[in-house]
C-alpha cells in the first residue's frame, strides 16, 4: 500500500508538471473556457431588445399616436415612422427593420365606428424564434394599450380576460441567466473528456505509456494518476466559472455550494470516464480529439438542454439525449443557479450521473490493460 502511494505520488507530480508546461493543456483548460465565458456572458443573448420597427401611419392621428407611444414606452422596440408602406417595405427587405406596424388610412374611422380595426403587422419570419418573441412583445403591448385606453375612457376592460404572467425563478427572463450556468457543463466536458483523451493519446504516441507499463506501476495507479489532476482542473474550472458568473455577470446562485460541488464531481467523473474510454479506443491525438468533439463536446452543446429545449426535439433525438451525461448536469445547474436546492430535480439527475460515472469509469477500467494490443 505504501509502495503504491509512493508510485502514485511520483506519477501525480509528473502529471502536474506536464499540465503546467503544456500549452495545449493550458489552451483547452483555461483559454477556451475563458473565451466561452466572455462570449456567453457578454455577447450572446436570445432576448431581443430595441427591435427596429417601421411604423406606417397613412393618416397619423391621436389614436395611432397613442399606440406608437405605447410601443416606444417599452424597452423592446425602437421605431421609425413612415407615411406610406413602400419605403417601409424597402427598409424591411434591406433588414433595417425587423417588423412593420401598419395603420391604414381608414384605421381610426373604422376603429371608432365598428371597432376591430386591424393593425397590420408584418414580421420577418426568417429567424423564427426572434419573430415569435417579437410577436409576443407586440401582443403584450397591444393588450396593455387596450387596458390603458379603457381606464382612461372609463370603459369596461378592453379585453375581458386579464392574464397575469408570473415567471418563477427568472423574473427578468434574462437568457444569460440560463445560458451561463450551463457553460459549466461545457467547460467540464472540455477538461474532463477532450483534454484527458488528448493527453493519454499523447502518451501512446510518444511511447511514454509503453515505458510506464514495463515498470511496477499498476494500471490502476496509471489511470488514477490521470484522473486526479484533471479532476482537480475540472473542478477548478467549475469554481472559476461560478465566480465569474456570479460576480461579473450577476447571475443569481440560489443553491448550495455543497450540492453544486457534489453534482459537479459526479458529472466530471462521468466525463473523465468518457475521456479514458476514448483514449483507449483511439491512440493518437488527432483521432481522439475528433471523437471527443463529436461524442462529448457537440452533444454537451446541442443535446443537453443548454440552449435548445429537449422536450421539443423529435422522439429519436430525445431518446438519444438520455445517454448524454451533460443533459442531467445542465438541468441540475439551471435549477441550482436560478431556483435553489430543488431535490426533486437534483436527486434523479444526480442518480443518472452517478450511474453514468460508474458505467464509463468501469468500462475504462475494464478496457485498460498493461498491454499494447
Amino acid at each position: 500500500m505504501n509502495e503504491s502511494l509512493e508510485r502514485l505520488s511520483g506519477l501525480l507530480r509528473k502529471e502536474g508538471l506536464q499540465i503546467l508546461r503544456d500549452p495545449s493543456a493550458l489552451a483547452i483548460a483555461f483559454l477556451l473556457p475563458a473565451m466561452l465565458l466572455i462570449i456567453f456572458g457578454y455577447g450572446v443573448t436570445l432576448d431581443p431588445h430595441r427591435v427596429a420597427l417601421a411604423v406606417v401611419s397613412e393618416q397619423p392621428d391621436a389614436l395611432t399616436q397613442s399606440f406608437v407611444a405605447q410601443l416606444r414606452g417599452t424597452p423592446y422596440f425602437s421605431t421609425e415612422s413612415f407615411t406610406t408602406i413602400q419605403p417601409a417595405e424597402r427598409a424591411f427587405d434591406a433588414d433595417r427593420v425587423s417588423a412593420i406596424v401598419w395603420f391604414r388610412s381608414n384605421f381610426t374611422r373604422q376603429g371608432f365606428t365598428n371597432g376591430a380595426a386591424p393593425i397590420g403587422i408584418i414580421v420577418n419570419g426568417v429567424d423564427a424564434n426572434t419573430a415569435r418573441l417579437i410577436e409576443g412583445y407586440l401582443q403584450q403591448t397591444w393588450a396593455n394599450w387596450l387596458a390603458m385606453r379603457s381606464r382612461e375612457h372609463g370603459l369596461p376592460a378592453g379585453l375581458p380576460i386579464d392574464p397575469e404572467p408570473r415567471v418563477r425563478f427568472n423574473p427578468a427572463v434574462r437568457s444569460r441567466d440560463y445560458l451561463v450556468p450551463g457553460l459549466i457543463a461545457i467547460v467540464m466536458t472540455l477538461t474532463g473528456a477532450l483534454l484527458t483523451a488528448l493527453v493519454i493519446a499523447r502518451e501512446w504516441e510518444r511511447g511514454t505509456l509503453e515505458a510506464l507499463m514495463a515498470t511496477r506501476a499498476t494500471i490502476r495507479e496509471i489511470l488514477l494518476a490521470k484522473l486526479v489532476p484533471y479532476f482537480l482542473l475540472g473542478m477548478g474550472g467549475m469554481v472559476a466559472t461560478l465566480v465569474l458568473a456570479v460576480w461579473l455577470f450577476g447571475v443569481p446562485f440560489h443553491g448550495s455550494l455543497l450540492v453544486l460541488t457534489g453534482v459537479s464531481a459526479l458529472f466530471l467523473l462521468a466525463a473523465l470516464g468518457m475521456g479514458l474510454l476514448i483514449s483507449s479506443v483511439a491512440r493518437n491525438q488527432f483521432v481522439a480529439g475528433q471523437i471527443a468533439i463529436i461524442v462529448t463536446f457537440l452533444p454537451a452543446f446541442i443535446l443537453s438542454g443548454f440552449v435548445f429545449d429537449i422536450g421539443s426535439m423529435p422522439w429519436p433525438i430525445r431518446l438519444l439525449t438520455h445517454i448524454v451525461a451533460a443533459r442531467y448536469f445542465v438541468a441540475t445547474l439551471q435549477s441550482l443557479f436560478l431556483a435553489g436546492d430543488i431535490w426533486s430535480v437534483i436527486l434523479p439527475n444526480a442518480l443518472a450521473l452517478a450511474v453514468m460515472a460508474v458505467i464509463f469509469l468501469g468500462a475504462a477500467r475494464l478496457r485498460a490493460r498493461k498491454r499494447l494490443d
Partner: protein
Amino acid sequence: MASAPEPLPALSLENVCHRFGSPARADTALANVTAIAPAGAVSGLIGPDGAGKTTLLRLVAGLLRLQSGRIEVLGEDVARNPDAARARLGYMPQRFGLYEDLTVRENLELYAKVQNVAPQAWMARGSELMHMTGLAPFLGRLAGRLSGGMKQKLGLACTLVRIPQLLLLDEPTVGVDPVSRRELWSIIDHLVRTERLTVLVSTSYLDEAERCQRVLLLHEGRLVSATEPAEFAAQTRGRSFQVSAADIGKRQLQAELAQRPGVLDATIQGSSVRIVTAAGAPPPSASARASGRALSIVAVPPRFEDSFVALLKSGATAAAPEVPTSGERAPLAPEHGAAPAPAPLPAAAAEAEPVILATQLTRRFGDFIAVDAISFAVQRGEIFGLLGANGAGKSTTFRMLCGLLPASSGTLRVAGYDLRRAAASARARIGYMAQKFSLYADLSVRENLRFFASAYRLRDPQRRARIAWALEEFALGAHADAVSRELPLGFKQRLALACALLHQPEILFLDEPTSGVDPLARRDFWRRINALAEAGVTVLVTTHFMEEAEYCDRLAVLAQGKVLATGDPDSLKARVRSAEHPQPTMEDAFIALLEAAEQPQAA
C-alpha cells in the same frame, strides 16, 4: 533462482509465433522462434527493420498477448504470471518514452518513485547512475533538449533506477554518435560484469553483433541463426578478401568484381573492395585481373556481416527481396529513359568549379549555433558524405544546401545557384531523397511516381517513359498499385530513390538513405548510386553509419556544428593508424577526431 548456476537460461522462448491484423489478412511478425538467452551475458537480437525484434521484446516484457508458444523469464511463465515476470525485468523501449517536457532530474525521480526505490537508496543509486551516464551536468535540462545519445543514456538510467535481473533494450544505439554508442555499450558491459545482469539488446547494426556473447539473428520474423558471433562469422573464414588495383576506380573495380562467378558480395572499403566468395568457390587467384590490370588480393578476417550477407544471398532464408542483385548492367545510363539527360555542365566549368560549394556556412537558432562556419566543396561526379551523429548539424547543413532553410551567414552555391533565391526551375537540376523515405503514404506507387514526374515538369511521352523506366528499374512493377504506406521499408526506399531520379538530376541529395534497411537493400542502393556517380552525377549524402561512409569519395566529419576533418575515407583512417590499431575502422577514426576536438576545450 537468479543466482542459479550458468546453464539455466535467463530467458527461454519456445515456438513463439505472432501475427498482426485480422486473421484474414494477417502479417506474420514472428514465426516459430525458439531460443534461449544465457544468464549473465549479453545476447544480441539482430536484424533489419521489420525483422520482428520489437515484437519479440514486447512479448518478453508481457506488453503483447502471447498468441502461441511459451516464454519463460527467469523461470516465470510470462503468459501465466506476467506481473511476477515483469517485476524482475527492466525494459527500455525504442525511442524510450522520456517525458520531453520534464527535466532530466524529474524524469529520473519519476521512475525512481514508480519503481519504489527508497529515498535513502535513491541518493546513492542516483549519483551512481549520474556518474555512469555522465548526465550529472544536465540535471536541470528538459529531456527534449538533450542530444540523441544523452536521451538514450537517460532512458537507460531510468530503466536502471532499480537493477533488474533481465534487461531488455530495444535499439538503444539508433541515432547515437559513435562515442555515445561506445559509452552505452561500456555501461552495458559494466553492468553485466558487476551486477551479473542478463541483457537482451536488439540492434540493426550488424557490427554490434560482435559485442554480444550470443546472437539471435532475425530476418523477416524467422530466427536465422542463434550462435556466438565469432562462430557465426567464422562461416565465411577463408572467403573474405580485400582487393585493390592500381589505376582502376574503386567503383569500376567493385562493379566488375561483383559480376564474377563465385563472388557473393563486393563492397567498397575506402579505396579497395572487400569481397566474399561463395562456399566452395575457389579463392581468387593472385593472377586475377580486372580490366587488364593486376589485382592485389589480401585475405582478411571474416566479419559478422559477411556471413549474414552470404547466408541471405545463398538463399538460406525464404524470402530475400526481389531485387536484381547482380549489377549486370549500368542501370542509369541515359538511354534507358529514352530521354535526353539535362544538359551537362560545360566541361571546362565542371573541371574548374565545384558543383556544391559551402563557405563559412552558419546557422543559428536563437542562441544555439547548429552549424558553425563550415566550408567544403564537392566536384562533379563525386560522392560526398556528411558524417556525424544526430544533432551534429548535418541535417541543418543539408537543409540549407537544398534551400529549405536560410543560412544565417556564409555563402553556398549548388550548380552555381543559391537554391533559396534561385528561380524554381533551378531546383529541376537536383534530386532529393528525404530521411525516412517520405512519400505520400496514401498514394499508390504509380500515383507517387506520376505526381513527382509532374512536379519535375516532365511531359508525355517522356513522363510515361520515365515512369515505366522507374517501375522496371526498381522492380516496382508488381507493386505499382500498392499503397505506399503498406510497402516494406526496402521498397519504400527504392520508390523514394526512383522519385528523386525521374527527372535525371545532375545533383542528388540523400538524407540518411539506408537507415533501417537490410544489408542486401543497402548494397543494391549503393550499386545504383555508384553507377550514377560514374555517369557524372554529383551526390551529397548524410549518414551516421560509419560503414556507409566507406562508399564516399570524400567526407566531412561533423560534430557540434563544426567540420572536424575533410578527406577521403582512407586518409581519415590513416590518421589514427598506430601499432595497436593497424587496421583502424571508420569508427575509430571518427572517435579519435571527436576526442581530439574535445581536448582543447577540456584544457
